[in-house]
């Protein structure tokens, strides 16, 4: 069963603004998640530079032995990436849905300050509905 392990959202300067763990064993503490987020931000940038052809938008999918990492970068540089079981399908679709929720429930919320960690409960509510809706089993570990 396809499963999401965790979801990260980082702002355009690489700061982690949202981290949700869906039951991957050994939940990462905040410092590590921050480090991972900024590391990924720089990896993403370097991979653009190394591109052999013009117009590279950075890493979209990283395949590792025990997980896949799908990343979606919005035009303004906000990156959404989700860590899931290898071979999970329609993760790009899920990231697009999450991006839509972000534009709806975070950017349109007057009490959200840009580039700051996300504290909008409507975003959380809709996010959990979206992840359930995609029949993506959450590892209830």
């Amino acid at each position, binding site marked *: 069963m396809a499963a999401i*392990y*965790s979801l990260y959202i980082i702002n355009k300067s690489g700061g982690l603004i949202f981290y949700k763990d869906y039951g*991957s*064993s*050994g939940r*990462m503490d905040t410092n*590590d998640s921050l*480090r*991972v987020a900024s*590391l*990924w931000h*720089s*990896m993403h940038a*370097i*991979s*653009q*530079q*190394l*591109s*052999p*052809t*013009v*117009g*590279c*938008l*950075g*890493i*979209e*999918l*990283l*395949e*590792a*032995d*025990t*997980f896949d*990492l799908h990343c979606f970068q919005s035009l303004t540089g906000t990156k959404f990436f989700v*860590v899931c079981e290898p071979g999970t399908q329609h993760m790009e679709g899920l990231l697009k849905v999450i991006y839509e929720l972000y534009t709806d429930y975070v950017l349109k919320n007057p009490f959200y300050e840009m580039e700051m960690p996300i504290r909008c409960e409507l975003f959380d509510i809709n996010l959990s509905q979206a992840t359930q809706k995609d029949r993506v089993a959450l590892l209830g570990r």
Partner: protein
Amino acid sequence: MQFFGGSDISPSPPAPTASGNNAHMMYVFNRNGVCLLYREWNRPLHTLNAQQDHKLMFGLLFSLKSLTAKMDPTSMDKGNLGVPQLPGQGCSFHSFRTNTYKLSFMETPSGIKFEIMQFQFLGRGFGENIRFVQIILITHPKTGDLRESLKYIYNLYVEYVVKNPIYTPGAPIRCELFNTSLDQYVRSISYLLFKPRPSGTGDLVLQKAYSLMLISIIKALISVSKSVVKNLGSRDILNII
């Protein structure tokens, strides 16, 4: 987003070398980041000079490795970031894809099993240094899983480089034989990768060229020392064909 030459729909498969802008390059690094080999078959864009490019690539791979080890969701003990991983320890990534290229990566701690026999007499230290190498293939983003091809290239590497007595470990690879067989192999891979799935009625010309190429590969394989062929599992050969 059809960004580059329609590799799937164009009737005649693009000749691997001169075809549009789907890049095809290969790096081989050793443990301390020295670039043993950089082969470039098709690279339309050169952003950095060679030296920086290699350093940046190795840096990218090094931190990506520690990142994946850190993010491994299945293992409980999380080493802290940045600590160099011993080869084979912790989970490591095997490829990443961007919209313009796909990078397939292989680290060869697992290459120990069939060299033991050859390196017995050379002593452990020597073998260790040679054996650990990273091979990176950069191809068209839509290419499939290249782990098998990387293994095959690694075998070529072991055959032509490691066993070449005049080769000093850690130095950039100069072996001619290795380069030629590598070129042949890569040409065959890229040919295969871009080959449109032969739908039943595929035109005859394609079939003929295809079989010709097949024969040349087999001839090349036979010419190489027997041990290489013996070690290749039937699955590998099938995969190549």
